[in-house]
């Protein structure tokens, strides 16, 4: 009789423990599923890539660099037809993009001009990720491109573009 009572209490305790285990397993499976599907829908890397390509196509035409850009009279947003105004409420409070455009003398490596638009603090976040060799989901996603070009007089330049896209609320 006493043995039956102890077994019944043990049995009830095990049942409660079983459901705790199930809840932990369910949590792990649901987290995995959500993590997988959120990864599928993170397009910031692609956006940064397209943005950097668009800028290079705009600054260099037929292999010749835009002279206004070399001279420093170049409005990137207007000339390259880029619109950084955010209509979405999630992004309204802060800038979501960053562009850095550098032109260097190809022979000496000396920087001739540097232009930056958007969130200047993104540059450091891009560097941090590159140094760690790891993409941080909560950081902006970055893309670097370098292109060789000449001007109309045949002077050689190296154009370096860095673009970064934040939009964390819609991608992470």
């Amino acid at each position, binding site marked *: 009789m006493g043995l039956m009572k102890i077994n019944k209490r043990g049995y009830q305790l095990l049942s409660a423990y079983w459901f705790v285990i199930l809840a932990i397993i369910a949590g792990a499976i649901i987290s995995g599923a959500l993590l997988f599907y959120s990864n599928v829908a993170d397009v910031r890397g692609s956006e940064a890539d397209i943005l950097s390509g668009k800028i290079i196509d705009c600054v260099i*035409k037929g292999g010749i660099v835009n002279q206004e850009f070399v001279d420093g009279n170049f409005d990137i947003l207007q000339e390259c037809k880029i619109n950084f105004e955010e209509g979405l409420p999630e992004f309204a409070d802060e800038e979501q993009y960053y562009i850095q455009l550098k032109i260097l003398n190809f022979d000496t490596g000396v920087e001739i001009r540097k232009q930056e638009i958007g969130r200047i603090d993104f540059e450091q976040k891009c560097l941090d990720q590159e140094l760690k060799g790891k993409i941080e989901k909560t950081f902006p996603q970055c893309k670097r491109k370098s292109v060789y070009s000449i001007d109309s007089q045949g002077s050689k330049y190296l154009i370096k573009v860095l673009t970064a896209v934040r939009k964390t609320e819609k991608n992470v």
Partner: protein
Amino acid sequence: MLKKGLFFKNKKADNILVENIIFLVLNVLFFAILIIFLARQGQGVVLNEEIFAKKIALIIDNAKPDSDIIIDFSKAVEIAQKKNFDISKIVTITDNIIKVQLSEKSGYSYSFFNSVEANAFLLDINNPNKLIIVVREKEANKENGFDENQ
């Protein structure tokens, strides 16, 4: 004298059986809910709205003015039809924001950075598997004389 139970005359045996049945039913219910949730995640309205909105945004970002791009839209149309949602209203573009809606109570918006006029509509309403995205230069850019070939 043993009291009569639900299944057995032995009340204690009966209790054990009932407890086990309830335990098994709860387990089956739990796993069924989990499996249904996972299945819906993959086929869900919300996920497909997000995917299509972002896909269209990337297409517009990458497009040059005077481009017409046709994409396969059958999956979105299929979901919208199952949800009895008007397929002509699936995609709306306002300024630089795309909204994809596959049911009355949902919708996903995403923005693009290309400074163009963009529109999207079904290529053929009777065979609505293709979406055409029309990208044109903005009127303001035309007035200011901006030229792609400058």
